[in-house]
C-alpha cells in the first residue's frame, strides 16, 4: 500500500489503481457471465441507473456521501500507520449520537428550532463516533493492543449496544419494529430537493440531503489537516517513519489518539446522512456494510482525500446502479456489487504489490530504450 519508489509517479498514482480496478471488473464480469448474464449490457444498465436520471444521480450522490465519510475514516488512520476496521461500529455510534440528541430534544426540550437542533445532532454524531474510536486508540497507544483486532471487537460491541438500547430502552412503545420513536420535524437534515425547490428548481424527492455538503467540507478538511497543518505533518511522520518522528520529538501516542479521534468523527457522520437525513428515527443495522466499503474506497483512492472523493463516486455509482439492476434484471442480485467491492479490496489492496514488479521492469525497459535512442 505504500508508495512504490521503483515506479514513476503517474504510474503509481494513476495507472496502477486503474489496472487493479480493471482486473477486479474483469473477474466480476466473469462472475456475471457465469450466472448467465451479458457483462456488457449489465455495465451499461448500471451506469444508466446511476447517472441516467435526476433521481438516479441523487441516489448516487447520497450513497457517495456515506462512502466519503467511511473512506476518510480509513485513510486518516492509515496515514498514522493504523488500520481502522472499526468504521462500521463508529458509524453506528454516530447514528446513536445523532439519535440521542434528537430524542433528548423531543423528550425534554420540544420545539427547538432546526438551526440549533441540526448542528447539535451533527456534533453528537461526531462525538460518539470519535469516542468509539478513541477507546481502541487509547488501548493501542498506552497498552499496545493492536488496533485491527480491537476495532473489529468494537464493531461487535457497537452492534450489541445498539441492539440492547433499541430493545430495552429506546424502542417505540406499542410497535413490533425495532426502532425508536420518530424525531421532531425540526430534527432533520434538509433534503437537497427542498433546497432546490426554494431556489425554484424542480428536483425529484430522494434521500440526498445536505449532509452531502458536509462530505465536501470533510474532504477539504481532511486534505488541509493531512497536508497543510502541523498536526497533519506530525501524524503522517509518525505513521510513515515512527522512529524518526519520535526522535524529532513527536509523541506517537498523541498521533494515535488524534488519528483515531478524527477517523471516528468522520465515520460518525454516516449517522447524520442516514439517521438525520433519511430515517428520522434510530434503527439498528443502518450502516449496512458501509464501514467495510470504506476500506475499498480508501484503497482505490490511494488514501488521498481527492482520490477518496473519486472512489466514493465510483462506489456510489455501483451501489445505485446495482440497486437499479437488481430491480430490472431478473437473476441479478445486488450482492454482485458487494462481490466487486471485495474484489477491488483484493486487487487494489492485497495484491497491489503483484503488478509493481512487472510494471517497473516494463518501465525500465522503455526508459532505457529511450535513453539509448538519444545517446547511441
Amino acid at each position, binding site marked *: 500500500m505504500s508508495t512504490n519508489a521503483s515506479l514513476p509517479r503517474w504510474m503509481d498514482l494513476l495507472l496502477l489503481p486503474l489496472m487493479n480496478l480493471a482486473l477486479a471488473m474483469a473477474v466480476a464480469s466473469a462472475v456475471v457471465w457465469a450466472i448467465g448474464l451479458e457483462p456488457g449490457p449489465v455495465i451499461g444498465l448500471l451506469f444508466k441507473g446511476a447517472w441516467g436520471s435526476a433521481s438516479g444521480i441523487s441516489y448516487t450522490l447520497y450513497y457517495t456521501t456515506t462512502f466519503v465519510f467511511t473512506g476518510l475514516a480509513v485513510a486518516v488512520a492509515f496515514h498514522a500507520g493504523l488500520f481502522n476496521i472499526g468504521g462500521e461500529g463508529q458509524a453506528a455510534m454516530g447514528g446513536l449520537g445523532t439519535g440521542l440528541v434528537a430524542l433528548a430534544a423531543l423528550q425534554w426540550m420540544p420545539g427547538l428550532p432546526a438551526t440549533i437542533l441540526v448542528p447539535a445532532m451533527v456534533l453528537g454524531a461526531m462525538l460518539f463516533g470519535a469516542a468509539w474510536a478513541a477507546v481502541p486508540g487509547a488501548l493501542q497507544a498506552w497498552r499496545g493492543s493492536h488496533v485491527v483486532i480491537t476495532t*473489529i471487537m468494537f464493531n*461487535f460491541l457497537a452492534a450489541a449496544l445498539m441492539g440492547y438500547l433499541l430493545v430495552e430502552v429506546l424502542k417505540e412503545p406499542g410497535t413490533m419494529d425495532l426502532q425508536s420513536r420518530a424525531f421532531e420535524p425540526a430534527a432533520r437534515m434538509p433534503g437537497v430537493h427542498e433546497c432546490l425547490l426554494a431556489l425554484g428548481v424542480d428536483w425529484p424527492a430522494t434521500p440526498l440531503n445536505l449532509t452531502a455538503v458536509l462530505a465536501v467540507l470533510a474532504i477539504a478538511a481532511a486534505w488541509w489537516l493531512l497536508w497543510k497543518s502541523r498536526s497533519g505533518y506530525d501524524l503522517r511522520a509518525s505513521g510513515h517513519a515512527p522512529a524518526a518522528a519520535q526522535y524529532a520529538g513527536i509523541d506517537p501516542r498523541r498521533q494515535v489518539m488524534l488519528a483515531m479521534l478524527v477517523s471516528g468523527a468522520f465515520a460518525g457522520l454516516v449517522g447524520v446522512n442516514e439517521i438525520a437525513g433519511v430515517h428520522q428515527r434510530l434503527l439498528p443495522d443502518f450502516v449496512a456494510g458501509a464501514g467495510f466499503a470504506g476500506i475499498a474506497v480508501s484503497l482505490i483512492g490511494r488514501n488521498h482525500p481527492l482520490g477518496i472523493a473519486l472512489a466514493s463516486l465510483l462506489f456510489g455509482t455501483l451501489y445505485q446502479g446495482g440497486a437499479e439492476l437488481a430491480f430490472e434484471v431478473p437473476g441479478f442480485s445486488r450482492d454482485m456489487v458487494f462481490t466487486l467491492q471485495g474484489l477491488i479490496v483484493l486487487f487494489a489492496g492485497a495484491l497491489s504489490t503483484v503488478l509493481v514488479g512487472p510494471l517497473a521492469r516494463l518501465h525500465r525497459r522503455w526508459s532505457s530504450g529511450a535513453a539509448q535512442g538519444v545517446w547511441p
Partner: protein
Amino acid sequence: MMELLHEIGVQAGTLIGSTLRGATPLILCALAGCLAERSGVVDLGLEGKMLLSAFAAASVGAATGSWVPALAVALALGVSMSLVQGWGCVTHQGDQVVMGMALTMTAAGLTVVLGGAWFGLGGQTPQVGDGARLTGWFTDAAQSVQALPVLGPMLGLGLMGHNGLVYWTLLCVLLVWVLLFHTRFGLRLRAVGENPLMVDAAGVSVRGLRHQALALNGMLAGLAGTYLVLALNANFIPHMTAGRGYMALAALIFGKWNPLGALAACLLFGFLDALAIRLQGAPWPEMLGGGTVPVQAIQALPYLLTVVLLAGFIGRARAPAALGVPYLKER
C-alpha cells in the same frame, strides 16, 4: 428430591450439549487461525473461508445427497482461498489484514450471487438430504446412560450423541497441539512466526513453511464451514457464519495462541452463546432493576473479555513476534 436432581441433570446436560455443538465451528476456526498466526500470517479471512466452504458443502450436498463430495469440495475451496492468500501475502508480501478483509468481503457477496442464480431461493440453498447430514455417534450409549441419576442426563445429553465431526474436532485440537509443540515441523512453524530471519539463516524456506501452514489452515476452515451446513443447519443461509470467524480469532487471542487455550476459550464463548439463547426473555431479579435478562450483554462478553485481555488487564496475550510482517528474502 430425585425429581429435582434429575431436572438439574437434564438442564446441565442440555446446556453442555449446546455449548459443545456451538463451539465446534469456533474451535475448528481457531485452530486454523492458530496455524496461520503461529507462522506469522494474520488471518482475517477465516470468516470468508468458512462462508464459501459452507456454501460449497451445502450446494454439493443438496445436489448429490452425500456428504463425501460435499466435504471434499468444501475442503478444496478452503485450501484454494488459503493459496490465494499465500500467493498475495507470502509470495508477494501483500498486506495480510487487507487480504483477509478482501477474502471475507468477496466470499460474502459471491455466495449470495451464485446461490441466488443457481437455486433462486434468495441466496439460500435447498436443504441437504438426510444422506448428506452428519449423524450422531454413541446414540445408543446416550440412551442407556440416561437411566443413571443426575450424571446420566448430563453425560447422555451433554457429551454423547453428537455427530462425528464434534469428536473429530476435539481430536484435531490434540493433533494441532502435538504438531505445533512436539514435532520438528511445529518447531519450525513457530520459529517462522517469531523470527523468520533465523529460520531462513538455518536454510529452511520461510515461504514454504507459511504456505504449508496456510494450506492446513484452509482445510480446518473448510471443515468448520462444512460443519455449519451438514451438522448445525440443514442448508446454507446468506451470511450464516455471523461473525464466527472473528469470534474464533478472539478465542485464539484469548487462548494466547495455544490450541489448548483456544479450545478453552471457544468452549467459554460457546457456553456464553448457549446461555444467552436459554435466557432470552427470562426475568431479571427485581432487586437488580427487574425487566428481562440483557441477552446482548452476554453475547457481547466474548468481545469485551478479549479487548480487556488484549489491553493486558487480565494476564498478557503476546502475539507471535513476526505476526503480520511480510518476509522479504534479501538477494
